[in-house]
């Protein structure tokens, strides 16, 4: 396990009592506003001293109130990107970026040039933080944390102020970070979709408690988790292998139960990729459909049905080895006469697998 957290902390009107473990990779910490996500982040960074708890990163104990251990923030090597940026107002963008690097000394591995380019902040290097727009600030803050060569990266809604394009530009980079370095990332977000493709593990927090935690694919594909994550964010994450790039700009990915055609992803054939398909982006059919613009039609078997209070039903399909969720109306479920064990076809528009939801291959080489 690369990250073990167990915290108890009481604030007036709010008590945090959370415990979770996360393997290597990206752990997504979800929860509504006021759930205590930022409090968890601050405790891990060493900026809030919880009443009691234990924090361990890759076997290194950062905090253990029982044993009286509490590493100072600067010894934790925990990079943070905060909701509010927190750039140093007296330093230029360049100097802000260099700040952590300087202390990282020989650990400082990342090439600043690559990070700067990836974040699109090359033109801002000479500026002072006060002259940046909200999104520009946040991009610089991300760069600064990355360049400090942290052993754990905490990101507290770092992309909230970014536009979709910038977000999409940064996600693949975080992905590579996850895959090629072994830096665990704890990523706080409101929107599962934002990090589902990134996250190895999902931890759902509400009112200071962990509601559910587990591997992303499992959790997202679990119909029981839908009320926790919110129906809009339900969906499944499939693992696959990149097979080929086609002329018309599509890439072919093989999954256990068939193949998918996705908008081009830049990676060498053979690479492993993760694909997220939102439950609401899947249409079901009992007969093999014909003459549709949708390219991805997978054959599977209904393994579970879960209806909530609304008009929707979550249908879990077994497709090869994978689980796929579909969210359809009760009316449709009745019309199709769906029941566990039944064979049916899942239709996903290739483009419904959004660029941000395709993981595994980043558009740019990882900085050294």
């Amino acid at each position: 396990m690369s990250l073990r957290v167990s915290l108890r902390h009481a604030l007036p009107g709010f008590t945090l009592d959370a415990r979770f473990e996360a393997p290597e990779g990206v752990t997504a910490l979800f929860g509504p506003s006021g759930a205590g996500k930022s409090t968890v982040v601050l405790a891990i960074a060493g900026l809030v001293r919880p009443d009691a708890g234990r924090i361990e990163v890759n076997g290194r104990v950062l905090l253990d109130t029982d044993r009286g251990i509490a590493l100072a923030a600067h010894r934790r090597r925990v990079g943070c990107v905060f909701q509010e940026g927190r750039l140093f107002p007296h330093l230029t963008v360049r100097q802000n970026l260099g700040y952590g690097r300087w202390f990282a000394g020989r650990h400082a591995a990342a090439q600043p040039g690559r990070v700067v380019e990836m974040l699109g902040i090359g033109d801002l290097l000479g500026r002072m933080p006060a002259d940046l727009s909200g999104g520009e600030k946040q991009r610089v803050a991300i760069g600064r944390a990355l360049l400090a060569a942290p052993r754990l990266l905490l990101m507290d809604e770092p992309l909230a102020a970014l536009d979709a394009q910038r977000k999409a530009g940064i996600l693949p980079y975080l992905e590579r970070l996850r895959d090629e370095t072994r830096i665990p990332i704890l990523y706080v977000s409101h929107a599962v979709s934002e990090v589902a493709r990134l996250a190895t593990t999902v931890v759902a927090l509400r009112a200071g408690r962990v509601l559910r935690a587990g591997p992303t694919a499992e959790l997202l594909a679990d119909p029981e988790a839908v009320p926790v994550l919110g129906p809009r964010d339900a969906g499944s994450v499939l693992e696959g292998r990149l097979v080929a790039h086609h002329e018309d700009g599509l890439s072919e990915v093989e999954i256990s139960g068939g193949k998918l055609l996705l908008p081009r992803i830049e990676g060498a054939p053979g690479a492993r990729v993760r694909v997220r398909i939102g439950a609401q982006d899947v249409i079901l059919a009992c007969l093999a459909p014909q003459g549709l613009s949708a390219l991805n039609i997978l054959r599977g078997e209904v393994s579970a049905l879960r209806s909530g209070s609304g008009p929707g039903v979550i249908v879990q399909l077994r497709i090869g080895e994978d689980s796929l969720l579909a969210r359809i109306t009760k009316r449709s479920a009745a019309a199709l006469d769906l029941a566990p064990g039944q064979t049916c076809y899942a239709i996903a528009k290739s483009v419904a697998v959004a660029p941000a939801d395709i993981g595994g291959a980043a558009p740019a080489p990882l900085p050294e």
Partner: protein
Amino acid sequence: MLDTISAAEWDALRLSLKVSAVAVAASLPLGLLTAHALARWRFPGRQILNGLVHLPLILPPVVTGYLLLLGFGRTGPIGAPLEAWFGIGFAFRWTGAALAAGIMAFPLMVRAIRLSIEAVDPKLEQAAATLGASRPWVWITVTLPLIAPGVVAGGILAFAKAMGEFGATITFVSNIPGETRTLPSAIYAFLQVPGGEGAAMRLVLISVVVSMGALLLSEWLGRRIARRLGGT
């Protein structure tokens, strides 16, 4: 006007500048430490320290000078050992004038620095810590630059105050030409003799010009630094 300034007056001006500069330079590290302690640390006796720092502001200067004379004089409980063991003599020397000026200006310096430390967003220091900076480094690379306007303002204010300090100085180290006769002491001497007002006012003018120059410089520096930090 300058040609009417006598050599003795030049001496007084030079001495005042030296005394004030040394007073500020020597007390600045202690001022930073004290301001930081008052702004950030919670320790028993914090209020006592705060009170002590302010004492020179509250006491009539003559009393401060008298207390200095008692404590740091040749036979004083602090002055005597200092002189015996380290050869640091304050009694009736320019160093004593610097000590008196430094002490009188200390509360002003500490207050200015303290307020600017309190205005530093601790979140920035926390961010620096997460980037690997230990406490001292955070202080040097984040806190200090952010409080630079306050430090400059405090330092120069202290300098100006030191330039004008008189009561404590003359009471502590007397008014010895070339050694402890600063501008204000010279002004006093002129004011004590018939017809000395003209000469006194001339020296007042010199002293005001120097101090104002320093203050304006500090304003300008402060604004420059503030602008760099992106303030208004």
